[in-house]
């Protein structure tokens, strides 16, 4: 993004953001021995109150990419991109399927990662290992995407004053530093700052762009109908099927992201959790909804951009808005800093979750189960840094072939959903069919993406994989004979008792 409107001013704002994040990290960790407990470091002692929990859920689900990437999509797709409101909302429905019960069990058994639940429920190393691989793969790719986005946003904001690679390294170091000091607490409290800036920024951005098109959204619709009628027409049938498919893929995929599940574990109480989710349900129209409108207004402000050019839409609009007056100029700079902050806030949650899985699920479960919690936390922290270094190397030396496997996220992650969700309610669900369902579902999803068949009749490979996965797990479990003892164990595991 080439932003003529900023430069030195942008650098000042970015440095201020970085300093605030470091300060929050320092304050979150000061005087506490977070490193001696997995739950204190990775889950903020399972004691997040309503404000921190709400904003950390928000900042985790909505990244800077939500703005920089979704506005151009609305620009290209037209009104069909309204789907971004519903697919972000349906995540709450997916949470309602499993969060209430999983919260109770996680408190009773002191879970740290989603894998803890899977291992407890199925007692099967193959299932555990496969789930860990799928989740780490999805998380790693998600982190990679955020790291690339940080560099693009920073070099865009500063008009190239801060070069791309320097920007990434500087912000990654800031992120690692505050995360090292304060763990989940630092992540959640920085999310409050990052979330507020993002929300306010979107509203001012929309106000500015509406002002520039004469203050009347009705004109925008009429303009598009006249010049690009395809963008206002009723979507064709395959687009409608695709819309349903994405509701399933994103709904289940985003709700069972490991960092999303860990936010269920981190809640101080059931009351805090349900209040946070109840408010989260209103965020899609206020976030992706407003970004959608911004993208649509962009069609009138900059008609006829090619697909590549449209990727710069947010920067181009910000330039125009910054030109209105000094107020808008400064808000745009603060907002662009906010976009960077929002990307960092998504990346930090993903990294923390990644570290917790290295620490708890791989090192603590398979390598050195007798290690002290302090040692496990350290392994997670150092492992996280190594993972970030490896991902940065990958970002700067992208493989010439098979690049697609680094794009797979939801498609693979969603395959863990049946084990997590069905396992909560169906006592007969057993390990072997779950394993084969997960493996075959992931292979179908992965192969479809790799061979270029991302969708069939509008249905995503991840959703087809998920259907096969559920069928194998479900039908297979009907054929596996479970003893009365196993069923009563499952009954016990999934019960709603508070005490173990």
């Amino acid at each position, binding site marked *: 993004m080439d932003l003529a409107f900023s430069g030195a001013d942008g650098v000042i704002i970015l440095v201020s953001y970085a300093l605030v994040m470091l300060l929050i990290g320092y304050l979150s960790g000061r005087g506490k021995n977070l490193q001696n407990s997995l739950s204190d470091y990775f889950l903020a002692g399972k004691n997040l109150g309503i404000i921190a929990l709400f904003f950390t859920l928000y900042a985790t689900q909505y990244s800077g990419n939500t703005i920089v990437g979704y506005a151009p999509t609305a620009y290209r797709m037209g009104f069909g991109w309204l789907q971004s409101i519903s697919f972000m909302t349906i995540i709450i429905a997916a949470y309602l399927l499993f969060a209430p019960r999983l919260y109770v069990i996680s*408190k009773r058994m002191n879970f740290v990662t989603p894998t803890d639940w899977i291992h407890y429920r199925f007692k099967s190393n193959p299932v555990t290992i496969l789930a860990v691989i799928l989740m780490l793969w999805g998380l790693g790719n998600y982190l990679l995407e955020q790291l690339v986005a940080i560099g693009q946003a920073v070099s865009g904001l500063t008009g190239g004053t801060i070069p791309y690679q320097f920007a990434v390294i500087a912000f990654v170091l800031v992120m690692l530093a505050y995360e090292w000091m304060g763990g989940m607490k630092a992540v959640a409290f920085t999310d409050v700052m990052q979330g507020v800036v993002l929300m306010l920024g979107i509203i001012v951005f929309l106000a500015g762009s509406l002002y520039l098109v004469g203050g009347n959204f009705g004109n925008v619709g009429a303009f598009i109908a006249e010049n690009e009628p395809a963008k206002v027409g009723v979507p064709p049938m395959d687009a409608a099927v695709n819309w349903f498919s994405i509701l399933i893929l994103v709904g289940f995929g985003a709700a069972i992201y490991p960092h999303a599940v860990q936010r269920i574990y981190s809640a101080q109480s059931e009351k805090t959790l349900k209040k946070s989710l109840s408010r989260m349900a209103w965020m899609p129209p206020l976030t992706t909804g407003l970004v959608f409108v911004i993208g649509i207004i962009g069609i009138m402000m900059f008609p006829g951009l090619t697909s590549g050019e449209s990727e710069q839409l947010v920067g181009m609009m910000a330039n125009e808005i910054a030109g209105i007056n000094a107020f808008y100029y400064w808000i745009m700079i603060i907002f662009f800093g906010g976009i960077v902050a929002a990307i960092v806030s998504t990346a930090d949650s993903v990294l923390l979750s990644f570290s917790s899985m290295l620490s708890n699920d791989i090192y603590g479960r398979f390598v050195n189960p007798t290690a002290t919690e302090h040692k496990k936390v350290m392994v997670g922290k150092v492992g996280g840094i190594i993972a970030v270094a490896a991902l940065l190397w990958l970002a700067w030396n992208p493989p010439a072939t098979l690049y697609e496997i680094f794009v797979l996220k939801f498609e693979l992650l969603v395959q863990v959903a049946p084990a997590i969700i069905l396992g909560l309610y169906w006592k007969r669900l057993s390990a072997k069919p779950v394993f084969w369902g997960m493996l075959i579902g992931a292979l179908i999803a992965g192969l479809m993406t790799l061979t270029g068949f991302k969708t069939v009749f509008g249905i995503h490979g991840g959703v087809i994989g998920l259907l096969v996965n559920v069928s194998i797990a479900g039908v297979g479990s009907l054929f596996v004979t479970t003893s009365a003892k196993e069923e009563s164990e499952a009954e016990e595991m999934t019960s709603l008792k508070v005490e173990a």
Partner: protein
Amino acid sequence: MENNEVREPIKKKWIWIGVVLIMLAIVPWYFPKGGEVTFVLGFPAWAFVSLMFSLVLCGYLSWLCATQWNIVEDLEEEEK
């Protein structure tokens, strides 16, 4: 007393029938393709309808979280 009742959303079929019906209303599969597009507040009519049902989904899910979910809350709040 209703407050002491355990309420778990997955146990209530009507909740999920509601979610599916709202989803079916959000996705504009049922609008005739082609023809003249009418506008409501700058939105094509089909998109306006879809937007309204998207907001219904937000309100419905928000309300469900607040009222249809109560498992250990009373116990936890008592302990405080």
